């Protein structure tokens, strides 16, 4: 039964190749996108942390985005 399912009356190669290519491409793009996002978040949080105390306070106060990213990544530093 499993053999029939994989063979698909001779079309298995084409069907499985189509699904595999699609799923693998999607997985690679997902992995790369997530990795890039994490990298930018980390770098951004690091750059804020490297600012002087006054500047950091003003950035966090004036930018919701900066404060959110910093709150997520503050444990890293």
């Amino acid at each position, binding site marked *: 039964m499993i053999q029939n*399912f994989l063979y*698909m*009356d*001779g*079309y*298995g190669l*084409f*069907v499985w*190749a*189509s*699904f595999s*290519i*699609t799923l693998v*491409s*999607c997985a690679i*793009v*997902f992995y790369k*996108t*997530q990795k*890039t*996002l994490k990298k*930018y*978040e980390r*770098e*951004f949080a690091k*750059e*804020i942390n490297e*600012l002087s105390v006054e*500047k950091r306070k003003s*950035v966090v106060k004036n*930018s*919701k*985005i*900066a404060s*959110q*990213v910093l709150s997520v990544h503050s444990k890293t530093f």
Partner: protein
Amino acid sequence: MFSFFSPTNIFDWIGKLISFINSIFFILLLVALSFALIFSPPDYLQGDSVRIMYVHVPSAWIGLASFTCIALLSIANFIFKTKNLIIITKSIAPLGLMFTCLAIVTGSLWGQPTWGTWWAWDARLTSMVILALFYTGYIVSHKLNLNEERANKISSLIAIIGSINIPIIKFSVDWWNTLHQPASIKLTGTSTIHSSMLMPLLLMFFVMFLYCALIFLMKYKTEIIRMKKKNLKRL
């Protein structure tokens, strides 16, 4: 209206949406794949090769819809000059290119058992390749080390010119004699696809759409942080 949707206002929502889609995505993917590969019936003529449709058709739809979106937003950007629109189009373009390429590759894999050839320079296939070239041009214009404003203008022009290709792709099967079959699913008029195949197809489309939303949101978030990072350096 544009200020309401500004990156600062929606940044928090983006994170929540990403988490929500992540939590339901894999279950939906498993259900959709089960329907596409197991529960849907084989075609009376094409046999099991028809299952390729469940990845080929949604990929093509997403490829076309993404470019239409990019073209419309590029026109809006010419009028309103909003930076947010550029960030959105920049985040959509790589997804559109990937799905256009997937539509071409899976179409080729479907063509071999159905038509007896991997490739034919017929109107539908050629116009899809042209769409992939427009996507590439759009992405490359942003990657080149051009002045940002100039890059935006060039990419918007590419998107607007490329939009001419969208109706050509859609109606190529009606205007010319092609190997590619005419549309089976019609928004107006009766669809010629049986519900036992239409349901898994729509389910696969929904899952792929969710995937696109997930990647788009992550790319959009990355672009926002990149922009903020640049502003931080100016301090």
